[in-house]
């Protein structure tokens, strides 16, 4: 028994050391790009597109389920977006509250007969409304079918070649859409998806789609989510995107080429991670066609979202994310280690499997061994001690490093106190936040075997004033 535990300990320790090193390697890869663009005047580099007919029009899809509190302010913030030509489509996915009523009253909407093209099958469309004040705002009232189904209905109704989807709890920055579309325009359509990163709004003051003051939240749970985001984004995502093998644009705001999405079959209704699954399917489509088109992630934050500050909501979010990741990897298991899919199959799929998905299992075992070693002589206390050190290194020191690296490259938080606060909170990660995440992520893997798709539930407090 002890011998088996010892072997497992060695495996976990080796895993954590290897992952840490791969994190650092990936960061080194991303560093140049971030550093290169850090000083670029973003305003100057996008202002030309504002008055340019080459700027493709975009349909903005807002899927809504029981969003009567936030839907109107979300749409209002979208109206303020700087973009030459856009339409806004709200999809009420069979809400039980007065989501539709709020929209109809606020924007003086009337029912219209609309000849919708059925690119993708969806649940029944009950009616379509159009605003008489802003004719480019439309509302689809449909039978409940889940978020993916709602998005598909939005795609069917949309009239423009590109679309983006935004959740009711997010605020897009005024020039966010322009910044996200920039790579698509500049590549003359060779880039079919761009993802811009999302930042956590708690603690900052946002009014009328503009971030007035950037600040830090008081709640440690939200602070840790900021640290976690630095870690995932700076160490990992950015480098993978740089190599054109970023599989998942999760936690990001994305713009998609509609024709390609329709070709790929639209959003998948059978997973909770519909956004990541779609990106993987598009990658797969490109590889199978041997197409030169690409998917790109831009380091600029373009969208602000409200992070959960209660453990309950955070738990359900993490379980859902992990489940989505599992389902996506499972659906596309054919790509795993398959040379036909190039670096996606050989590097990216294994990375997401071993680091993002199974990492939680390794860490869970690690915590188990530390506990068992110190209190129940499961392994030699010396080994448990090493495991403890490696866990702290992997959990806390790497996260603290991510905070420092953010300051070195993007430095988005304005005060010295922000930096110090984030750094010291990051050091506590391995002792409370990470064990919780690890536990929930393992639960997420189990949940993938059991549950059916449903909308994530979160009590909105609202982030804009």
């Amino acid at each position, binding site marked *: 028994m002890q011998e088996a535990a010892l072997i497992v300990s060695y495996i976990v*320790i080796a895993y954590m050391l290897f992952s840490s090193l791969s994190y650092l390697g990936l960061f080194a890869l991303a560093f140049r790009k971030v550093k*290169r*663009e*850090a*000083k*670029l*005047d973003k*305003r*100057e*580099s996008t*202002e*030309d597109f504002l008055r*340019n*007919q*080459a700027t493709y*029009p975009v349909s903005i899809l807002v899927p809504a389920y029981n969003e009567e509190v936030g839907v109107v302010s979300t749409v209002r913030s979208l109206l303020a977006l700087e973009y030459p*030509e*856009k*339409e806004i489509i709200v999809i009420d996915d069979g809400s039980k509250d007065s989501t539709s009523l709020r929209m109809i009253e606020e924007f003086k909407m*009337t029912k*219209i*007969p*609309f*000849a919708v*093209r059925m690119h993708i099958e969806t649940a029944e469309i009950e009616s379509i409304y*159009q605003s008489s004040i*802003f*004719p*480019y705002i439309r509302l689809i009232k449909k039978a409940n079918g889940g978020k993916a189904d709602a998005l598909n209905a939005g795609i069917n109704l949309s*009239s*423009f070649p590109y679309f983006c989807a935004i959740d009711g709890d997010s605020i897009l920055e005024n020039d966010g859409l322009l910044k996200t579309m920039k790579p698509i*325009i*500049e590549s*003359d359509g060779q880039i079919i998806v761009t993802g811009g990163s999302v930042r956590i709004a708690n603690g900052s003051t946002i009014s009328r789609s503009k971030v007035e003051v950037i600040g830090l939240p008081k709640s440690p749970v939200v602070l840790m989510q900021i640290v976690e985001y630095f870690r995932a984004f700076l160490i990992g995502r950015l480098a993978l995107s740089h190599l054109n093998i970023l599989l998942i644009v999760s936690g990001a705001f994305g713009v998609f080429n509609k024709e390609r999405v329709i070709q790929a079959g639209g959003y998948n209704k059978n997973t909770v991670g519909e956004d990541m699954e779609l990106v993987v399917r598009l990658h797969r489509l490109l590889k199978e066609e041997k197409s030169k088109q690409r998917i790109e992630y831009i380091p600029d934050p373009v969208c602000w979202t409200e992070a959960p500050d209660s453990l309950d909501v955070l738990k359900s979010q993490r379980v859902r994310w992990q489940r989505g990741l599992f389902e996506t990897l499972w659906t596309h298991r054919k790509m795993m280690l398959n040379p036909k899919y190039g670096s996606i199959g050989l590097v990216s799929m294994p990375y997401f499997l071993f680091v993002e998905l199974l990492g939680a299992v390794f860490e869970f075992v690690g915590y188990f061994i530390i506990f068992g070693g110190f209190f129940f002589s499961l392994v*030699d206390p*010396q*080994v448990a*001690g*090493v495991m403890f*050190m*490696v866990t*702290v*290194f992997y959990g806390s*020191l790497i996260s*603290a*490093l991510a905070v*420092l690296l953010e*300051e*070195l490259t993007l*430095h988005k938080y*304005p*005060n*010295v106190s922000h*930096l*110090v606060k984030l*750094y010291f909170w990051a050091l506590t990660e391995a002792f409370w936040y990470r064990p919780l995440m690890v536990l929930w992520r393992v639960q997420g893997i189990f949940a993938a075997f059991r549950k059916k798709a449903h909308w994530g539930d979160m009590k909105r407090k609202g982030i804009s004033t």
Partner: protein
Amino acid sequence: MNLFFFWMLSLSLFIGQLILLGILAWRKQRTNRKESSVDRQYNELTDAFSSYMMDQDDTRFLQQLDASPDKLVVLERLLNHYVAVTKAGDSSAVITALSEQYLAQRYAKLLKQRNWAMRMNTLYFIEDFRMASLIPQLNERLAKHSTSLDQETQQLIRTLASLNEPAAIEALAKYPEAPARLYIDVFKRLDELTKLGELEAALEGSANPALKHAAISYIGMAGIMLFLPRIEQELENEDPETRIQALKALLHLQYMNNPESLAPFFRSDSWQERMFASQIAGALQLSRYKELLSDLLGDPIWWVRYSAAQALTQFSDGDILLAHLSTNHPDRYARDMANQWKTSLLGSEQ
């Protein structure tokens, strides 16, 4: 497993991080202090700057500026803000004079900087402030740097065009992969006279399709009626993309000398041509094509049906026609489309 080794490793990494934290915090404090000092100088100079922009005899601004410790950074911000607010398409001569006097030397140096972002920003500013004295440096940079049509080369070419250098088009034409979008960017920036000459040349030439498409497209966007006969001629071009661009331009120009030449496009094999023909027939209210539009309401392509229905709404009797078609058209999709358009005018933000 040596616990001591891991202890020491973690401890030294932790100490290393603390040192890095200290350095970064110090750096942040210094930048913040510098930033707030620049902000203060900016605010102090704003009033004097505004007065100077109205009346250049009021030289208080120049005196205050010279006394300012970060005068170049502050001036750059003042000018940039002014240009952004006034959206001065024909940049003010005062802005150009100020930037030439104070910033030209700095920008000449910055163009040789290793930092890519700094060079890009400099190119944007040279364009915004119309600093013609830097043309030789820009040309030199273009000759040396541009092995590929990367972002910097593209911006170099745009900046040169904004300084009215027709050589920008030649420079762009060196890259066979240059898209029409970039040629349009160049046309937009040239001054009227140079622009007309370059458009004429682009329409005459046939060696560079992207350039020709860009010229046709730009003529439509900018509504240059002078070229209307040339655009109508292009409807007979053998290249399908040229024909589509010409149709699109005619739609923008909202006029045709010879509407008869539109007829073949309603029966074209290309759905884009059928769509644009429908849109033009509607926009120009060419009632002779009403019957063809009614036929196209049953086109297999959704966009053609949509455009045909939209076109019918433009005629004075459009509502009656659509009401009739919504019940009597032999095609089910045509009836749906007519139904949609008869009751509502659908649009998007323009």
